[in-house]
């Protein structure tokens, strides 16, 4: 019988937030004869903390929802059956772990382990084939930037490589600002060496001599792992390329909280110590970038793809659809059973991702928001659509960085769009008129609508102004800021109409347009709701007084019988009437 070789505990941010720290402490306290290591994230965040027990025969047993208590730990060490974690066959069939193959499976801080799993072989291959061949291979692979715009990585590198007699810069965009997207964080935390290998290959191919990683300050663990990895790479002199007399400089720059800095010219300004305001292109950064040096900016996931691409270009192009080659990592969040990360070939359908992988209940989902706050919203009827850059664009949405927020039937689309706009209008850099003032005017209108003060003209106003903001903004933030409103108007116009015409929120979410009521037949008078109500709006005979109620939902969450719910405004009890 196989013996335990190693205990691996998923200790990326998601695992740690779920309590992986305590689990690590518990295992380490036992002073075991085999190593207990902290790994990264395997993508199944819903099952965290996850413990992988590696056996001497090369197989592994996974445990989910692990607690740090004695019973649980002993159970695992005895290879018990309880809490064993498996991935459904349907999901496995859809998944294609290329970029995330090692994520969560190796110690992110251990360069030797990365090497032992094929790490840096692509870099060696790059040195062998030479820079021009690397760029040719990148072009041939069809790899498109995974940050959102989907521009050909090979072409971008080609532009930079063509610049002669100047210092050149390469920037890794790790300013993952889209709420709902966390694949970049996960990659940096789980496989920092892989991200850096991609960057080294890029620097070698383009002739860049300085690398920046512009990372969100909100990702301390990612920064920590990257720093460790950089130190080891420099120690091993992997940053001194054949034929160069000076080692490559690799610097991590922490962002300071500005979504717009994900835009390349804004990021450059930020790296120059300025306000992160985008500027007009051309000149493009590959002509005039950081401190006027030619600069190429690529996203974390893109760089993580590079070693995979170079390892076997044909295998890469065999995946996905023409024009959309390879895999894409999606971050699933919202109203579904299995939130987390998933890597699938480009071109799988939304239904595959939402239902088969995400475990969302068919019929309980009304839409999915793709591409973050400035992406678009796609209704469930369109879930047959293939997920690639071009198909989603045709539906008025974008792949963006790959965030997928699943929106359940009980969400209000108007409120959801208002929320996204709240985010984007606050993240506007404040330079261009349309974005600075226009998004504010749209936001005010959305606020009015959810507050029940909308008028039918507001809908046309939003559509007209939204289109103009799209057309009259300098950078992607402004150009896409109206998207949530425009795409929900496209597919869920009836919800807007209900709000402005009937003063009714169909999902009964908007506080100004809904009441809270107790269904008497279900109520068992347990009084839990009354005790839990922060404002004392529930009477001793268990009636919610809507004149006092703040719509905080506490009672709805507390009720063991699900007897309390939101109802149409005016239908609940109100002592003031």
């Amino acid at each position, binding site marked *: 019988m196989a013996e335990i070789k190693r205990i691996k505990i998923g200790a990326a941010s998601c695992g740690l937030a779920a309590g992986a720290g305590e689990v690590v402490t518990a295992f380490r306290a036992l002073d075991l004869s085999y190593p207990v290591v902290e790994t990264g994230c395997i993508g199944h965040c819903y099952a965290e903390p996850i413990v992988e027990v590696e056996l001497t025969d090369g197989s592994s047993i996974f445990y989910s929802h692990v607690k740090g208590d004695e019973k649980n730990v002993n159970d695992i060490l005895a290879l018990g059956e309880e809490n064993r974690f498996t991935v459904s066959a349907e999901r496995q069939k859809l998944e294609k772990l290329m970029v995330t193959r090692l994520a969560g499976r190796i110690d992110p801080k251990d360069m030797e382990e990365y090497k032992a799993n094929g790490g840096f072989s692509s870099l060696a291959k790059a040195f062998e084939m030479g820079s021009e061949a690397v760029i040719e291979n990148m072009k041939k692979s069809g790899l498109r930037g995974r940050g959102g715009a989907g521009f050909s990585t090979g072409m971008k590198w080609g532009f930079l490589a063509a610049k002669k007699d100047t210092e050149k810069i390469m920037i890794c965009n790790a300013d993952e600002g889209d709420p709902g997207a966390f694949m970049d964080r996960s990659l940096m935390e789980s496989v920092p060496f892989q991200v850096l290998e991609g960057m080294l290959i890029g620097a070698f191919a383009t002739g860049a001599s300085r690398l920046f990683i512009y990372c969100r300050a909100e990702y301390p663990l990612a920064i920590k792992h990257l720093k460790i990895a950089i130190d080891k790479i420099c120690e091993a002199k992997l940053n001194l390329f054949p034929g160069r007399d000076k080692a490559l400089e690799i610097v991590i720059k922490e962002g300071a909280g*500005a979504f717009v800095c994900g835009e390349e010219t804004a990021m450059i300004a930020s790296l120059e110590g300025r*306000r992160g305001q985008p*500027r*007009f292109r*051309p000149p493009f950064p590959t002509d005039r970038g950081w401190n006027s040096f030619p600069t190429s900016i690529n996203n974390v996931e893109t760089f993580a793809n590079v070693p995979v691409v170079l390892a076997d270009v044909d295998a890469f192009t065999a995946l996905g659809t023409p024009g959309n080659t390879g895999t894409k990592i999606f971050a699933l969040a919202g109203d579904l059973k299995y939130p987390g990360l998933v890597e699938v070939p480009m071109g799988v359908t939304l239904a595959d991702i939402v239902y088969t992988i995400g475990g969302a209940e068919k019929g309980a989902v009304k839409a999915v928001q793709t591409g973050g706050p400035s992406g678009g919203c796609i209704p469930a009827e369109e879930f047959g659509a293939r997920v690639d850059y071009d198909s989603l664009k045709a539906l008025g949405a974008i792949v963006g960085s790959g965030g997928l927020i699943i929106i359940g039937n009980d969400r209000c689309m108007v409120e959801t769009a208002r929320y996204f706009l709240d985010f984007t*209008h*606050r*993240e*506007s*850099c*404040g*330079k*261009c*008129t*349309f974005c*600075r*003032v*226009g998004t*504010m*005017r749209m936001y*005010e209108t959305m606020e009015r609508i959810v507050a029940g003060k909308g008028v039918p003209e507001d809908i046309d106003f939003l559509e007209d*102004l939204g289109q*103009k903001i799209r*057309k*009259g*903004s*300098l950078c992607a933030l402004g150009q896409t800021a109206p998207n949530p409103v425009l795409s929900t108007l496209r597919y869920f116009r009836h919800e807007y109409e209900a709000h402005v015409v009937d003063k009714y929120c169909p999902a009964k979410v908007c506080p100004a347009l809904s009441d809270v009521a107790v269904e008497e037949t279900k109520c068992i008078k347990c009084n839990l709701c009354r005790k839990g109500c922060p404002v004392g709006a529930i009477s001793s005979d268990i009636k919610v007084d809507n004149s006092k109620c703040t719509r905080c939902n506490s009672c709805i969450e507390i009720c063991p019988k699900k007897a309390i719910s939101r109802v149409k405004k005016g239908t609940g009890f109100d002592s003031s009437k």
Partner: protein
Amino acid sequence: MAEIKFKIDGKEVIARDGETIRSAAIKANIDIPALCTNGIVSKTTSCFVCVVKDVKTGRFLPSCSACPSEGQEVESDTAEVRDMRRTALGLLLSEHTGDCEAPCMVACPAHARVEEYVRLGRQGNFEEALKVIKEQIPLPMSIGRVCPRFCEKDCRKNVTGKAVSINDFKRLAADLYYDKYMEELPALNGKTIAVVGAGPAGLSAAYYLRLKGYAVTIFEQNSEPGGFLRYGIPQFRLPKEILKREIAHFLKMGIVIKCNQKAGKDFTVDSLKSMFDGVIVAVGCWTPSSMRIEGEELALQGIKYLEDIAAKNWENLENPGRTVVVGGGNTAMDCARTALRCGGKVTIVYRRTEKEMPAEKLEVEEAREEGVDFLFLTAPLRLREENGKKFLACQKMELGAPDASGRRSPVPVEGSDFEIEADTVIAAIGQKTKAPEGVEADKRGNVAVSKDLSCGNMIYAAGDCVTGPATVVEAVAAGHKAADSLMAALEGRKEEEKFFFNVSRGHWRSLSREDLVLLRGDKVSDEERVAPEYISMEERRTSFKELFPTIPAEKIMKEGERCIECSCTGKGDCKLKKYSEQYKVAPDMFSGEKSICTVDTRHPVIVHDHKKCIRCGICVKTCSEVINKHILSAMKRGFSTVVQTAFDEGLPSYCADCGACVKECPTGALDWKIKK
């Protein structure tokens, strides 16, 4: 250097290599508006007022930054592009607050440049002040006495006290220099105009026509010119000697006034049209309205009463005895006060309450002081005469629901009838126009005109005969407009409807002391408004002597110190205003919150009005790139972005010697405090 050929609206334009679309356009005399570029500092690409559309891609490009490519075609003057520019301007205006023009100027029907003439008055330069006044007010002596002072009602000084006594600046400036000042008159251009009626509208039209070289003849039916000024307004409000002096100037200008010329008898509009190049009808509004009660014929008609007395030059007048005046307008007040001065004991009867009275508050007050009694909520029912005495049967009223005009209509109180015994009853409840033959009348009987006051066939009309009874200053404004329209028509110019663009901080009622921007700082006096020195009450009750003498210069200069000077320092060269006018964008195209910011008046000579800032960034770049000082920076971001000094400490004093930012600011956000 390489040249790039491209097209703007189909017109071929050549750009040097590296030149932007806008800069190439300007050289080709194609005007593209822009606010965030000044040709000196580096591109910001922020205002997006300069957008053009690329025909091939359908994308909008900021032409201040985008360089053309060979063969590119862009659109700059299509409805779509104009709509984008209008939206950009509208959005900028929605975060921009200030006062382009002072509220007094906006309120004045003639839009007289109040702030300027008050400033000149404050400086003691009444001669210049008169010139400024006469740009819009050719009858400053009369209007300086009888104007209901629209300007003062909207004066911001009302926030902290009483309005600046604006009209008295006009009166003084005119009294001092009216006879002396003669406009520069151009030679006659050969065109002749006939004006019917020598009242304020007709005189005003004649004045502006003559200033442009037209020969004007006024036809007046009465024996003396002046119209309502001569025959409607009583001597104690406007002495006829003053009016004579005022009209004498018109004669000096070469305007011919033919009196005793009655329309329909001595001439017709058509006959004038056959002799003159154009005609302006300004016959006023002289037909009394009916009380619609039994025995109405026993009452005198208010307007006729005033006219008769004026014809007698307010001399050797009969005592009307116990007099009842029916009505609540200015004519009713004038009748009452005239009757009182003739020895009568006067009571005014009005259907509603004092609050609803259309008469000027000041006149009501003066009438009351002089001893006129008021019976409010009283409506006449019938009038009868018995033994030489008149009996006016009345009914008490109470106020009901508001009517279409928003005024609460009076409703009779059942069984409240009573009779008032009187020697004289004067009905002063309004007047109607009698349109002369040759022009059409509208439903209400007024002369029917188009928007530009035209009746067709080079005949124009202005004043009370178009609007019904109104004020002298409104008549003067209308006469000016009719003259402008007529001249444009005669000169074959297409006079576009003037787009009056004005941004306002709001009515004084919605403002508090903190909202007032005092560019003159503590030099703005907080003293009491100057009070006129009325003649004695005895004289007021028994004579037609003018109510008070013109307030002397020292006092008026001091009064001028009270003026806040509300208008924008930058109104003369504000690009936002210029383009908004050009693109006809109303300041309230978009409504919504303004960002929270202040007006910084701390610097001795420069005002930094953040509320006017459109965040174009030119000042920041001018200071850093041109002056190399880096005093200003954009702070915060998004809608909250504000251009400020470090720690909001304000501009350093040495900025007074530079002012580069002031010079480059496209609005009045950074400006010299002193207005010229």
